[in-house]
């Protein structure tokens, strides 16, 4: 059984069937990509996994527990971290503070009232955060105001914030959208490195086939809210149904 099990999930928005009988199983320690043309329901599916949307029917099990009805912070505490399409970081805070917040969340849970001890005295967490920053080559930027960084750096910071929590599952929502080729390649390298270094499961939603075929071990193709095929990248490449979904009937 996979780490993440999506069974018969349906979601309607008014008259639109956004997701129809989606079944998906993400095995532990794999990188699983979900691809599909625009409007295929990729984002809806993702939002159902993290607690932003609740499916009309079906079940979403993570690590043997249902995530349905839980809030995003509860789901994160279960071990799912999410990277957004446009980097979501704490822009008013420094890079180091950005890193410390997930460290605190990991150690103390969703709420803890440490109102007196100084942040400076949290040596262990600071070491953790610095180690992670070093891993993503951002240690020199730790005192920078995070809003003033480049988009690529923000993306790396966001990823570092997710990874420092040691999540069981990392969800990536088009992590290279809007990036230049060089940045995209850097991100691919970063993700490859992460995969080698740690035992982590990654689910990635992506448009860019270059990224998908560089990283994914399994690929699910989604079209009109329904999974079309699920297979290895080699088999997906020449699959007629995939071509059809992307290029239309004429092809």
């Amino acid at each position, binding site marked *: 059984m996979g780490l993440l099990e999506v069974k018969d999930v349906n979601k309607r928005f008014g008259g639109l069937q956004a997701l129809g009988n989606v079944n998906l199983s993400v095995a532990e320690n794999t990188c699983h990509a979900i691809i599909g043309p625009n409007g295929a329901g990729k984002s809806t599916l993702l939002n159902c996994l993290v607690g932003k949307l609740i499916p009309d029917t079906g079940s979403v099990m993570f690590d043997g527990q249902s995530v349905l009805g839980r809030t995003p912070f509860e789901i*994160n505490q279960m071990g799912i971290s999410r990277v957004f399409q446009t980097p979501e970081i704490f822009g008013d805070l420094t890079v180091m503070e950005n890193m410390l*917040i997930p460290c605190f969340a990991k150690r103390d849970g969703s709420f803890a009232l440490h109102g007196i001890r100084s942040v400076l005295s949290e040596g262990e967490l600071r070491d953790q955060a610095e180690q992670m920053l070093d891993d993503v080559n951002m240690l020199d930027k730790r005192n920078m105001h995070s809003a003033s960084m480049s988009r690529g750096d923000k993306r790396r910071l966001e990823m570092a914030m997710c990874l420092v929590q040691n999540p069981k599952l990392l969800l990536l929502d088009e992590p290279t959208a809007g990036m230049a080729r060089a940045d995209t390649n850097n991100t691919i390298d970063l993700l490859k490195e992460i995969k080698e270094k740690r035992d982590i499961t990654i689910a990635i939603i992506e448009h860019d086939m270059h990224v998908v075929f560089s990283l994914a071990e399994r690929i699910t193709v989604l079209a009109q809210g329904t999974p079309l095929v699920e297979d290895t990248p080699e088999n997906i490449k020449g699959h007629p149904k995939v071509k059809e979904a992307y290029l239309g009937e004429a092809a």
Partner: protein
Amino acid sequence: MFGLDKKDASLLLIVAALVAFAPFLLNPFPEGSAMAQFNAGYPDLMQRFVIFGIFAIGFNILFGLTGYLSFGHAAFLGVGSYAAVWMFKLLSMNVLPAIILAVITSGIFALVIGYVSLRRSGIYFSILTLAFAQMSFALAYSVLTPITGGETGLQLALDDPRIFGSATTAEGNIPVPGLFGLEMRDSSELVLGNWVFTFNVGYYFAAIVMLLSFYLAIRIFRSPFGMMLRAVKSNQQRLNYTGLNPRPYTLAAFVISGMYAGLAGGLMASMDPLAGAERMFWTASGEVVLMTILGGVGTLIGPVLGAGMIKYMENIISKINSDILHGWFAFLPDGLEDLVVTMIYPFIGKGWHLTLGIVFMLVVIFLPGGLVEGGQRVAKLFGRKKTDEPKSAKTEPAE
């Protein structure tokens, strides 16, 4: 020192020194001189400086850190005042139990209001707090008259029980609030040449409480909790997806700032044992917002500065009348003198609120960072390259 880093410790020491020597610093002009009306070193006004300082420091913990703009914080100040006066009526004239009850009561009050109001954010939150405060005002003003004294306010009486103290003094008067025998209104004067300096027990008591509150605020600003509050302001979505629940954090900040307001209210009643509903009116809530903004939102020292500025201006400006103005401009030719006086007159005396409103607008428009930011700009203007910004609340302290 005190678990603070060097910069924060020196800030605390500077504030402590200013507060300790305030009776000298605020009385720079000799008695009887033309400038004596700019003196502010008398007990009543100095008490207000530090008490409103506490109020603003607490408000800043909520507004400065989380960005939630409450328009109803005066309600907590009012509740604190009522609670303290009731302690004086029922228990004794010792200020400690009165202040403790004031803080607890306003804390509970803030917990209830905060729990409801914080279910919404943005302007909805502002309007909800405003509605709650106006409701509290209406209740205090008329409905709950047996508890609040209604229009006349809550006052001490000769026949109050005061079970742990005496209902009346030996002379048959109502006793005054004190701390184990030290009466809050006691003062001693130091006469040096033409200068008169007043040292008031109540002021120094309130000042010590203020320094403690300020110290606590610094600790909160530098703590993981303070960092979370800034994260709430910065990006709630990210906070949520990082496994943190924003609501208890904001609620804790709301309750803490409500307790600060209650503390200020309790101290106010300790200096002068009466409480009225007008302390809860929404313009009073607006005033603390102004103090915080004028000083500098989200900075440590800003609210203290802002509270001092506003209370000083209020006191001085509302005392000026047209005779004084004519005195000042007597050197001008008659016609011009009258013209200048007529032009300034609307802004002084009873026109203080007009000046206040204009200052409010000017600060929001031109100096959203308040006096602290203004100071920084001036410092920059003189080319003094600041390596570590005084606006340290927004940057991580140097390691």
